[in-house]
């Protein structure tokens, strides 16, 4: 019987024209943004070819083989160039450097394609060759000093960060020992696929999901008060326990909304971008390095594991946002007010650390909030993520906020059972 009530409550959200329109609009928008960012998708295929030919791990033996094949390809390039201009090149890079505008028409479309492929192949080879050299220059303590200076940390807060970076340097060495960074992946500096997926796409997904779940939860929770049916529904046998059903219905609606949006968005993403050969590649691959520091997670994670963890983390945060919205709704009994209060809560939680002295560890503690996690999914689980770099940051934040959300939810439900229905 209770399940049927929960389904009736869910139905209220999923028959709301505004909610349905927004879900479809957001799904369409995500598809549009993915397609509009896919101009380089053909270039990514080279990585699949490389993994197919040389394996996922970059070893000395595979690199030597790669180099030999590259030389053979260069010979073929020179055959073509000599046929047209009687000049030989030592690398594709040199060919492109010396290419003049008027020489463009010398080569056919097919030849240009092969040059492009060869250029990419050479770029990946050069990058692979320089991994050790690049990683040797990374000094974790310098990163720590940089971050401490960037955030203006002093006193105990600075000590905590410094100490965590010391722990992280052990992990960094372990990562190098494991060779996690020596696995093929799409070139981060050229294509920024990590940012495209985990920053742009996931952040977009997070914002959309958040709008939808706050609306859905507020709609389900406040439905009776906004339709003036509270005198009927709360005087039935189920009584005020209906509010508990509404909570469960809100969580189910959240699961369905996040699940649907995530499924559509990620399905589109991986349909457009071919990740078929790099699922098992490490997220710490040197190729995912895009900006100042490479990606280094606290744990050895493959790309697919990282993707699953981020998806679960985002889902968990959305569930907690739904619970928080529910607690607010029980008090306000008004969807608009709930939306405004939730937005205020979200922004305050995100900005809170900036109001606390940078010498205090409290500043680091208030940084353990859901707003920071969902706005920075691309650096989750990583030791190179500013003040989110703490090893236990994600799970501790989720556990603490689960506790807070459950307490607020419990209090609101308890108060509601004693509240007069007016």
């Amino acid at each position, binding site marked *: 019987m209770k399940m049927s009530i929960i389904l009736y409550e869910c139905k209220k959200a999923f028959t709301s024209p505004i909610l349905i329109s927004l879900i479809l609009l957001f799904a369409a928008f995500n598809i549009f943004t993915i397609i509009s960012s896919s101009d380089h998708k053909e270039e990514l295929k080279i990585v699949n070819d490389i993994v197919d030919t040389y394996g996922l791990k970059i070893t000395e033996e595979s690199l030597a083989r790669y180099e030999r094949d590259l030389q053979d390809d260069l010979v073929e390039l020179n055959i073509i160039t000599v046929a047209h201009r009687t000049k030989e090149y030592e690398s594709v890079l040199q060919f492109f450097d010396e290419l003049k505008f008027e020489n463009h028409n010398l080569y056919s479309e097919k030849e240009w394609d092969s040059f492009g492929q060869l250029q990419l192949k050479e770029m990946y080879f050069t990058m692979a060759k320089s991994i050790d050299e690049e990683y040797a220059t990374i000094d974790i303590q310098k990163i720590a000093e940089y971050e401490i200076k960037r955030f203006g940390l002093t006193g105990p807060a600075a000590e905590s960060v410094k100490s965590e970076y010391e722990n992280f340097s052990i992990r960094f060495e372990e990562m190098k020992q494991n060779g996690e960074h020596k696995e093929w992946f799409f070139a981060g500096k050229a294509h920024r696929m990590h940012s495209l997926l985990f920053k742009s796409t996931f952040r977009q997904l997070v914002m959309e999901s958040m709008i939808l779940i706050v609306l859905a939860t507020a709609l389900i929770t406040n439905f009776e008060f906004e339709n003036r049916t509270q005198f009927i529904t709360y*005087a039935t046998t189920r009584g005020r326990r209906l509010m508990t059903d509404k909570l469960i219905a809100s969580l189910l609606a959240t699961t369905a909304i996040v699940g649907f949006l995530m499924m559509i968005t990620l399905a589109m993403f991986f349909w457009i971008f071919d990740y078929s050969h790099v699922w098992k590649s490490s997220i710490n691959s040197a190729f995912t390095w895009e900006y100042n520091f490479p990606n280094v997670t606290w744990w050895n994670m493959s790309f697919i594991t990282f993707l699953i963890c981020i998806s679960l983390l985002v889902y968990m945060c959305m569930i907690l946002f739904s619970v928080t919205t529910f607690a607010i709704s029980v008090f306000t009994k008004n969807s608009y007010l709930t939306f405004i209060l939730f937005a205020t809560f979200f922004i305050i939680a995100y900005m809170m650390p900036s109001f606390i002295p940078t010498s205090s560890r409290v500043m680091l503690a208030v940084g353990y909030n859901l707003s920071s996690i969902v706005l920075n999914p691309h650096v989750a689980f990583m030791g190179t993520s500013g003040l989110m770099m703490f090893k236990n940051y994600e799970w501790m934040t989720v556990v603490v906020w689960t506790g807070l959300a459950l307490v607020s939810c419990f209090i609101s439900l308890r108060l509601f059972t004693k509240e007069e229905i007016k």
Partner: protein
Amino acid sequence: MLVVKNVSKHYGKFNALHEINLEFMNGVYGLLAPNGAGKTTLIKMMSTLIFPSEGEILYDGKNILDMDEEYRSMLGYLPQQFGFYKNYSPKQYLLYLAALKGIGKKQASEMIPELLEKVALSDVMNKKMKKFSGGMIQRVGIAQALLNDPKILILDEPTAGLDPKERARFRQLLSDLARDRLVIISTHIVSDIESIANEVIMIKNQQVLFKDSVGNICDSLNGCVYETAIPFDQLASFRKRYVLLSEKQEQGRMIVRFVHKGEAGVQWQQAVPHLEDVFLYEYRDDIQAEV
């Protein structure tokens, strides 16, 4: 048996009801008082929507708040403002409310057409309620109150929006229902309950004024209600001296019905008091009259 025991309700400093004591058995009870007298407050307390500030409400000796679901499973309630989901049909809405009342879908699907037939809505069972008139909505409200075949049926202003034909049908329905259950009807329309209520409860100054049969309540004005014909120009002074219950024009004169508790005047005809007379008399405005 439902017992309201020493129940008071305060909203801050405002006293809505004060030490109300009532007992209800099976039958129809009319809760008669003008708007704002505290009828809805009392009814909401009996429906567990709000709680007494003092005192308690007992069903078969148990506090209804402690009985919780057990009490509400016996309760059918139609609030004064019957809210509905405008995009639902009566059938969909009643199915949802049936689930809240603990009735299985199969059983509800069988009951709902019968109930809607009783309130003459079977033709529009699957139409969205947003197109319904006020009377039709009120009939959906009556149907939902009957969904769980309640032992206690509480109806707050149930005839609001109903036309005379619908009111007659509704009174008939209530008479049938009241045979084996307790029906409490809150209203300020005397005719709704005059002919069907076993007992009428009148609330005045936050307290129970009467709880008696219609006949006994009417007896409180026995020998005090008169009718007489007066010229138009005497009407104003007549109003000042007596509590007028009704006035109508007839053959160029005014026929007035009024209350007077002293010696009868010449040409006054004593009338049998009706419940409406008592209602108008008890809830009269401050009339500058010698009664």
